């Protein structure tokens, strides 16, 4: 028989109490303990019991994967035998290595949490509102939208996010497609079906760089293949007729190369100046103010350092704890965004309703 352990204090605040004790959910809920990803408020999809995360609109990720696999498949099947015979055996080896690297980078970009910030708990939200609303007026007015702070002696405006109910940290932006605030938000990429942010930017960068190499490599090999064939006494048309798959590859590679190489170049520039696509597009640090002092406050003013920090810096952990268990004494509010809830002991503005349960809350209502 499960023992009802009534705990006053939010068990998550105490690391001494093992989480497993709560996950043997006692009492009223006859359902199994739920993991946090199941009650996640953003528009995301989860696989493998919370280990993998994807945006709900996965965009054209299947198309991206399909194109890469099909092109490489055709390459290995039709071009490689000829090239191995006439050139070198390293061609499929290099092609294979590039292909594996591209696919792994792509999957890592798509299925990694980009740096989603969990929404503010109701207590936090109430505290922020109280701090802003210091005039003490009883009428509820929406909090001001910005707060200014100094970063490296430069003024930066922090915006208030109404969905997540917090002031966004610098470089954080709210993605409307995924309905999440993402740290160091770069952009939402439909090709990988996920946002690109702090935690998966390096995977995205490796993906586009390796993809550039892969497409250029395949393009070059196919050209070499057709050239070699037509040199052996046959005409170009005949060579193409012998190997029609090469034409398909040529077309795909030709059109991809322009965009992929362009994108790689653009992102290399962003990495070297420690900017995000979002900041670059909005022109946050350039030109607008004209003065010399308003440069990028996050840049180290050294290309090598910027590159190393962005690509080889430490990877922060995922903040949304997908696989943790929802503590049993929590109520999932219908309208509210936060999935974590605590005793409402103060705040009239708290839009959470609290179920009466066996735990003794009588004194918490003294507020």
């Amino acid at each position: 028989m499960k023992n009802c352990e009534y705990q006053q204090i939010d068990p998550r605040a105490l690391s001494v109490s093992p989480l497993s004790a709560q996950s043997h959910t006692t009492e009223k809920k006859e359902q199994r303990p739920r993991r946090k990803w199941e009650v996640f408020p953003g528009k995301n999809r989860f696989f493998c019991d919370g280990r993998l995360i994807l945006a709900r609109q996965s965009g054209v990720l299947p198309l991206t994967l399909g194109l890469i696999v099909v092109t490489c498949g055709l390459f290995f099947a039709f071009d490689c035998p000829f090239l191995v015979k006439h050139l070198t055996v390293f061609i499929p080896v290099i092609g294979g290595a590039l292909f594996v690297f591209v696919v792994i980078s792509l999957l890592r970009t798509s299925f990694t949490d980009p740096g989603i910030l969990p929404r503010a708990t109701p207590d936090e939200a109430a505290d922020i509102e109280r701090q802003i609303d210091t005039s003490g007026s009883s009428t509820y007015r929406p909090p001001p939208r910005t707060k200014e702070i100094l970063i490296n002696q430069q003024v930066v405006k922090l915006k208030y996010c109404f969905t997540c109910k917090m002031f966004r940290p610098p470089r954080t932006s709210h993605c409307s497609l995924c309905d999440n605030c993402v740290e160091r938000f770069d952009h939402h990429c439909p090709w990988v079906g996920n946002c690109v942010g702090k935690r998966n930017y390096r995977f995205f960068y490796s993906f586009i760089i390796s993809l550039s190499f892969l497409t250029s490599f395949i393009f070059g090999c196919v050209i070499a293949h057709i050239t070699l064939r037509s040199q052996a006494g046959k005409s170009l048309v005949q060579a193409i007729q012998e190997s029609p798959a090469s034409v398909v590859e040529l077309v795909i590679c030709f059109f991809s190369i322009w965009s992929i190489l362009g994108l790689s170049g653009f992102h290399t520039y962003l990495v070297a100046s420690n900017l995000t696509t979002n900041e670059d597009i909005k022109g946050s640090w350039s030109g607008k103010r004209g003065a010399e002092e308003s440069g990028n406050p996050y840049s180290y003013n050294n290309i090598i350092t910027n590159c190393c920090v962005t690509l080889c810096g430490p990877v922060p952990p995922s903040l949304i704890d997908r696989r943790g268990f929802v503590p049993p004494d929590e109520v999932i509010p219908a309208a509210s965004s936060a999935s974590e809830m605590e005793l409402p002991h103060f705040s009239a503005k708290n839009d959470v309703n609290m179920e009466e349960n066996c735990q003794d809350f009588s004194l918490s209502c003294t507020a």
Partner: protein
Amino acid sequence: MATEFHNLQELRRSASLANKVFIQRDYSEGTACRFQTKFPSELESRLERTLFEDTVKTLNTFYAEAEKIGGQSYLEGCLACATAYLIFLCMETRYEKVLKKIAKYIQEQNEKIYAPRGLLITDPIERGMRVIEVSIYEDRGSSGSSSGSSSVSGSTAR
């Protein structure tokens, strides 16, 4: 020590949550993780300022260590890239190791310093690294907790 830990258990059973104070992030040096060391006024009656500042400063040092960019982190990054990031499946990153140290430190601080004063610190990782949440508890036996009211804006400097 036995007495403090005993207090932590008692805190669980006999105290009720009265208020929460949130220590916000300090962005003056960039986006690295740092918390403000300003002493919140709600804790004046409960806690010595130096103890609080020590805790926050130590936490800041831990986070700086986790996010330090230097030889070791570059090595980790390059190794990860070379193995197509598969190495993270078997290895723990330095950040995760430091986070474990932080969790232990916070637990220790709670047991030794905060619980005997009726306070509890929540690990910032559980709040998305946005705030350090300090919960203030009232002994249930004491009636009429005035702490519920307070629309005091947090941490005004003294």
